[in-house]
């Protein structure tokens, strides 16, 4: 109840941070996205779920230009996404991304992973970047691992480093592409805790995940995708208790069954 009214308050003042209008994307004969539209407000947390191959990863990869959309319009923090390098860099500088496979740089230490972007892209001095890195490592609760190499860490720790690496770019939006799907079960919570905390700090987030407990706790809006389309979009209370479509009900019954 509290959360709902907080959202309503936000909605009054907030403007769209991400605008996706009628985008389509094909890979050869495969229609990954069909005419998808989505608006995400400043500070809004959107959780996207759906069966595999439904286009959820493609959607968020389009938002920071990792995939090139064929048709439609994407606007991120008032920057229109075209595929010129200046537009890509403008968009990417306001968007952080966390990948399923972490994608840390294996030849760099944890701290170097975190400072590379700030030093090269944001032109921070090395000492300033180091300070920033340590601050974010504190925030994901692994400052003691700063001088280790990624492969010396557990999966959960690596994913937290990856989150910290994105945060060091001080983005306005964070995208999560199945951040816990590659983790052993006992490590999922440490990553979800960090994400929940981040959500609490007011970050605009889009998470593709099957962690429905996390979704219930954190999401302002649930999105269900199937066959490249957004089938359902609703606040979590309504989404989980009374899904509007057969396909969504079917999907939820499968993943919530156990």
């Amino acid at each position, binding site marked *: 109840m509290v959360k709902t009214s907080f959202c309503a308050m936000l909605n009054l003042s907030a403007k769209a941070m991400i605008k996706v209008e009628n985008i389509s994307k094909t890979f050869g004969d495969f229609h990954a996205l069909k005419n998808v539209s989505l608006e995400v407000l400043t500070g809004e947390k959107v959780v996207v779920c759906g069966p595999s191959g439904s286009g959820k990863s493609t959607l968020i990869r389009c938002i920071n230009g990792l995939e090139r959309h064929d048709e439609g319009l994407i606007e991120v923090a008032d920057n229109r996404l075209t595929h010129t390098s200046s537009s890509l860099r403008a968009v990417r500088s306001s968007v952080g991304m966390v990948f399923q496979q972490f*994608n840390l740089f*294996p*030849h760099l230490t944890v701290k170097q992973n975190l400072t590379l972007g700030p030093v*090269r892209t944001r032109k921070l001095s090395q000492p300033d970047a180091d300070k920033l890195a340590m601050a974010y490592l504190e925030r994901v609760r692994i400052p003691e691992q700063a*001088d280790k190499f990624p492969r010396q860490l557990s999966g959960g720790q690596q994913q937290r480093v*990856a989150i910290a*690496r*994105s945060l060091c770019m001080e983005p306005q939006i964070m995208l999560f592409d199945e951040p816990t799907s590659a983790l052993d079960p006992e490590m999922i919570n440490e990553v979800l805790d960090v994400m929940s905390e981040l959500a609490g700090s007011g970050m605009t987030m889009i998470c593709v995940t099957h962690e429905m407990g996390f979704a219930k706790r954190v999401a302002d809006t649930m999105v269900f995708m199937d066959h490249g389309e957004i089938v359902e979009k609703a606040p979590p209370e309504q989404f989980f208790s009374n899904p509007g479509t057969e396909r969504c009900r079917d999907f939820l019954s499968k993943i919530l069954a156990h």
Partner: protein
Amino acid sequence: MTFCRLAGLCCLTLLLTGCSGNWGWYVVDPTVPAGWNNLKFLLSGLYYTLLLSFTAIVISIVIGLAVALPALSANRALRRFNRVYVELVRAVPILVLILWVYYGLPQMTGLSITVFWAGVIALALSDSAFEAEIFRAGIQSIDKGQYEAAHSISLSYTDMMMYVILPQAVRRILPALGNQLVYMLKMSSLVSVIGMQELTRKANELVVVEYRPLEIYTVLVLEYLVLILIVSAGVRWLERKLQSDQRG
């Protein structure tokens, strides 16, 4: 370890060959003044062999990288440039290229060129095609996720290559690069045909004077052998060091 084995090999060679009546080791016997002088003469070629090979390998790596990067571009014309360069340069025998650069290039351009630089240019060009293929393979072996992560922190293309992709690629292709260095050391002997005063040329000149090809060329073989074993050990050391870097 390597050195023990090497010393053993040398002793064995000397023992075996020394027994035969056809050998006259006096030409390179360090205990007599004439032999010592001959030996010094042979070894004096080492300087140019090393200088030539290392200069050529550095230049060929730079050209190789510059030729490899277009192969990974989305632009078809750039990819075609890479293919044409690699196929053309790879098709020319090194000896032919050396002769062509030394005798042909000055006539074509009107510039005079020293023996040393003719050798460097020919070796570097011919090797660059192979370096390009090695770099391409190394870069292509890097996971797509590394590029995506680099994009997601909005690194520029140059920064991404310099700090993320190439450092990882170079670690993977180091054994192949070591091979090319060994190959280059051996191919530098061909530059003797245009008069470069390196190991092989020195041996040839001494043979003409002393007329003991068997002993002198045996020393030459040993010179290359020792040199290359040292270089191989160096490359392996570097490999180990870079690997332990990654494991911490």
